[in-house]
């Protein structure tokens, strides 16, 4: 976030803390899309994503006076949403058995003849059937890897902010991200060939 935007947000948060409903409304408008998509990717359920959206902003309104500005506002808000989402996931049986996530096999990378992926046909990616397969791959990842992948790569948060939201160290964030990316790449190797994307 740029300095000017950050200042505007700080003012907005301050007004909201003093009971300005218009300021609260502006904060909801600013973050509603991101929170909804966070919930959707985390749970792969539109209903759960809507619940997370509503609960997050209800808590934001209730507790905004407790926000002290020690972290950025969006870090604080994402943390609320993430906690609600993870609690929701724990309360339900897993649809898929979680896969085991490992480090990249460096020996394999260097010894196997590498074939490149040409540019994808991104039009096919938005097709419902292919989207379902992409969603399944993410859903099969254990929560601690999926959350890092969502925050770092899909929501483009920094390593530091991701670590703060998930309450893990920056080193752990990096390791989990590396493994998550590698896992998804390996799964996509078969999928893109099968779907004729290359």
């Amino acid at each position, binding site marked *: 976030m740029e300095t000017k935007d950050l200042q505007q947000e700080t003012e907005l948060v301050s007004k909201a803390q003093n009971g300005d*409903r*218009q300021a*609260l*409304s502006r904060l*909801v*408008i600013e973050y*509603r*899309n991101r929170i*909804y*998509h966070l919930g*959707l*990717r985390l749970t792969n359920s539109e209903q759960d994503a*809507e619940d997370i*959206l*509503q609960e997050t*902003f*209800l808590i934001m*309104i209730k507790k905004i006076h407790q926000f002290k500005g020690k972290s950025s506002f969006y870090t604080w808000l994402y943390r609320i949403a993430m906690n609600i989402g993870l609690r929701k996931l724990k309360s339900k049986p897993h649809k898929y058995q979680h896969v085991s996530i490992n480090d*990249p096999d*460096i020996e394999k*990378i*260097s010894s*196997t*003849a*590498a*074939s*490149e*992926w040409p540019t*994808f046909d*991104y039009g096919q*990616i*938005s097709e419902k059937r292919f*989207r379902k397969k*992409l969603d399944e791959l*993410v859903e099969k990842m254990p929560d601690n890897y999926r959350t890092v992948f969502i925050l*770092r*790569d*899909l929501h483009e948060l920094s*390593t530091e902010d991701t670590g703060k939201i998930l309450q893990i160290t920056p080193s752990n*964030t*990096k*390791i989990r*991200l*590396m493994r998550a*990316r*590698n896992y*998804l*790449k390996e799964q*996509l*190797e078969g999928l893109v060939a099968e779907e004729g994307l290359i």
Partner: protein
Amino acid sequence: MKNQSELYKKVCEYLGCDLDSTPCKQIQEYLKVCRNCEVYVDKIKKTVNIYKVADSCDQLPGDICKKLFITLNLNDLNHPEELSEKD
């Protein structure tokens, strides 16, 4: 083929490391003998991009926005047209 320095930065970036960290320095050495690294990094990049493209297709349904503002008791402040056009 990209030059060694550029490759090194790309590998580090996609592994999530700081450029001056020990793992990155080790990678720099490794790249001197690893011809497949660039292909590997390119695939990681395309994997992330596929998910970004897929996610960008999702829209927040208008009725969810309306329900949200009603739940938050903020629906008297905004016009529905404004809410659906923002973001």
